[in-house]
């Protein structure tokens, strides 16, 4: 029969998404399948493009910090941290040591809650709901700690050009150390629950493999690359904020499959809890903000390690109150090409866990679309303000 392989299976196209393809964010995958086996894949992103890079050029400088904070609900510290570091680099602003420590504390708390969120989602995708319930319950402790420190659970509003807004009091420090002691035990327990579990070993070992050569060739970043053995961690390489004060090792695994992804993220969880305790214990005294006059013309590009990997920002100022250009490359965009070797050869039933394994975040990746009378229109902020849509 024409169009079939030697076992009699026809080659079919299976569209997955754009709505809810295993995760609550839009991305479209078109799989070529023969029977249960995936033999080809194409992807489409951009369903949530919000035009944030353009909006950044149309707002006065201090407001841009708030805007970049709202790019993503999980990396809501990594984006503004990178942005203010770029502006400080252009204007040569020296940030006080205490502010650097406080920025690092928020960055690590964000990593802990993001990795626990990932463990929960990964458990849910393979039917291990106990793990989902457990990690998300314990994740609330970190959210409570963040609320204690800054008053917010999602957008912390911590970064400002020249330092941070929220100081840490003695009482907050004492309470944080108690929570971190508890979280250290939780990290051990989650690691045991994931790596000693036979369900995860059965469903995850050898699923979504990525060789080190492919990871380098396709430009994978963050835990996704480290799970394939690429020893790149921006915290170690660039030593931004207070990371230069601590000796960190990139956490590595081999193979890049779901189990390797879990090993990397869970080791980082443990490492982050250790680092947080060190940061709180060694928090230097002093001011938390430097005053500055103006932002001169200049450009700066730099990277920070968001929970999902290397986040790159490019900022160009022209001496006015508005930025000339802001370009953002989120870690998920860099990780999308590595989906192709991961999916090819897998079973259709493994698609959700592979899609979730790289911890994708499409709100970071796509950055206003309005649907009116069934037509999609891309609009700008001024049009929205003037009621022309």
């Amino acid at each position, binding site marked *: 029969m024409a169009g079939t392989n030697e076992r009699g299976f026809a080659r079919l196209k299976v569209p997955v998404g754009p709505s809810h393809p295993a995760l609550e964010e839009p991305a479209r995958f078109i799989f070529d399948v023969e029977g249960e086996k995936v033999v080809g894949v194409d992807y489409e992103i951009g369903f949530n493009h919000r035009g944030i890079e353009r909006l950044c050029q149309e707002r006065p400088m201090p407001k841009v910090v708030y805007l970049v904070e709202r790019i993503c609900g999980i990396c809501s510290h990594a984006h503004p941290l990178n942005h203010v570091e770029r502006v400080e680099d252009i204007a040569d602003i020296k940030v006080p040591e205490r502010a650097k420590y406080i920025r690092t504390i928020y960055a690590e708390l964000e990593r802990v809650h993001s990795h626990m969120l990932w463990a929960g989602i990964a458990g849910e995708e393979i039917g291990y709901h106990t793990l989902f319930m457990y990690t998300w319950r314990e994740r609330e402790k970190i959210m409570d700690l963040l609320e204690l420190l800054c008053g917010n659970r999602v957008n912390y509003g911590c970064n400002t050009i020249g330092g941070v807004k929220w100081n840490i009091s003695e009482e907050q420090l004492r309470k944080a150390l108690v929570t971190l002691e508890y979280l250290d035990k939780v990290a051990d327990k989650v690691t045991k629950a994931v790596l000693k579990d036979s369900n995860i070993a059965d469903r995850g070992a050898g699923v979504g493999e990525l060789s080190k050569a492919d990871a380098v060739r396709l*430009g994978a970043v963050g835990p996704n690359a480290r799970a394939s053995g690429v020893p790149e961690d921006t915290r170690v390489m660039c030593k931004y904020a207070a990371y230069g004060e601590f000796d960190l090792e990139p956490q590595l695994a081999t193979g890049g499959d779901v189990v390797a992804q879990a090993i990397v993220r869970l080791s980082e969880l443990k490492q982050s809890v250790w680092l947080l305790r060190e940061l709180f214990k060694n928090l230097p005294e002093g001011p938390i903000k430097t005053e500055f006059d103006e932002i001169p013309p200049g450009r700066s590009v730099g990277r920070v390690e968001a929970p999902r990997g290397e986040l790159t920002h490019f900022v160009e100022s022209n001496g006015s109150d508005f930025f*000339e250009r802001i370009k953002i490359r989120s870690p998920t965009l860099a990780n999308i090409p590595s989906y192709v070797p991961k999916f090819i050869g897998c079973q259709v039933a493994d698609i959700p866990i592979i899609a979730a394994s790289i911890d994708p975040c499409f709100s970071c990746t796509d950055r206003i679309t309005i649907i009116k009378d069934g037509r999609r229109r891309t609009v700008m902020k001024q049009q929205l303000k003037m009621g022309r849509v």
Partner: protein
Amino acid sequence: MSQKVSRMKRFEDVAPVIDSSHKGLNSYYYIAVDDLIEAAKFFLAEGARISMISGLDARDHLEVLYHFAIWGNIFTTIVKIPYEKPEIPTITSYFEAAILYERELIGLFGIDVKGIPDSRPLEIPPKYTDRLPPLRRA
């Protein structure tokens, strides 16, 4: 630092540098569009990774900035292209990861990337044609 300096000396042999500046971990080099492929080959041999490609509308011309990352440093190679003929060659033969960033340039800046294996604009709806690309100023 000396390693960085010797690397850039070798780079200048490969692609003539029109203008350059350095600050902290970053270096910026303006080169001609014709030398872009040679620059890509150079950075591939040096073990660099393409971290990002940014487009920039400088009001009288367009600029494309290739941010190559080698460990903690970023070497930004910049090419200027005229409004009338916004064309650049693709570097996907050397850096496969560059394809999504080049597709962004096609969608958001209307730049023609010659030789790209997949020229669908990224992030922009297919019906968004015959209009000014979103990040162009005029």
